């Protein structure tokens, strides 16, 4: 049996790296150009009655909805907040405190199921104030944790524009 004697040790095998680096750079440029820093979004569930509400027996344990009235100025800015019959100025913090006074600072599941808010807004009111109102009545953040106040929120029938 013949044994080859290598002369000068092992030969270095070179992989062609250039095409791979080209592709990687192209990928990098593609991702860098299409990259967008998108802020995360969240949802608020709305309980919306159907256009034709189904007739049924009224649950006696069901609390009547708390009415929140948002009045707009001529430019769509918030002019006034009313919680039931009480005027709260334009302070959403006071609205939250009013809801806390009704349902408690840490309502249990029973209250969460039965408590309901009805938002009655002017037609031209800017939508950002609606979200602020929903935020105020939905809950608050305490020590990094979200405390839920009211989960059922609905709109009153729309006012004419």
């Amino acid at each position, binding site marked *: 049996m013949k044994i080859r004697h290598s002369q000068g040790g092992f030969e270095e095998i070179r992989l062609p790296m250039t095409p791979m*680096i080209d592709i990687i750079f192209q990928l990098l440029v593609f991702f860098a150009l299409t990259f967008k820093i998108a802020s995360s*979004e969240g949802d*608020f*569930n709305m309980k919306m009655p159907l256009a034709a509400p189904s007739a049924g027996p009224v649950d006696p344990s069901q609390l009547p909805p708390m009415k929140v009235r948002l009045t707009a100025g001529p430019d769509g800015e918030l002019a006034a907040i009313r919680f039931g019959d009480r005027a709260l100025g334009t302070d959403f913090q006071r609205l939250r405190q009013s809801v806390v006074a009704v349902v408690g600072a840490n309502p249990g599941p029973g209250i969460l199921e039965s408590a309901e808010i009805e938002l009655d807004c002017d037609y031209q009111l800017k939508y950002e104030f609606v979200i602020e109102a929903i*935020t105020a009545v939905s809950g608050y953040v305490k020590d990094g944790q979200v405390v839920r106040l009211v989960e059922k929120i609905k709109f009153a029938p729309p006012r004419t524009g």
Partner: protein
Amino acid sequence: MRFKSGYTLPKEGDMTSMIDMVFQLVCFFMVALNFSEAEVNERVHLPSSELARPPDGPMPLRITLHLMPTGRVILGGEEMSIPGLRRLLILEKQVLDVSDKQRHREATIIIRADTAAMTGRVQELIRQCQEVGFEKFVLRARQEETRLPSTGT
């Protein structure tokens, strides 16, 4: 004057660290890439809320409506008025109901309305969807980074 004699091989720089870094950048961009761009629209600036949290799981059946400050709606890249939306909503409902007649009831309408949009228009939009037969609605808001003070209770 002395000259070096003989042929010298060209020296190659060490590419390993650069390739490592480029690979890491590619991985970062791939992971951070937002694949749900169909659900966002640059013309709509969402209001922010400290309680807006991303949903726990993906909504299986969802229809996203973008309401611009002008009162026009965008559905699937098509811009229209709120009354003009009815035709497309009926089509969406028919597509959903192909396998099951009541499947449209499970669909969630995601409303992405601009901060400056009129609330009455949002309500008109909801009414339009209700009349077609959709029942579930969510209002979408941008997650606020800065925390408002709590109630102090």
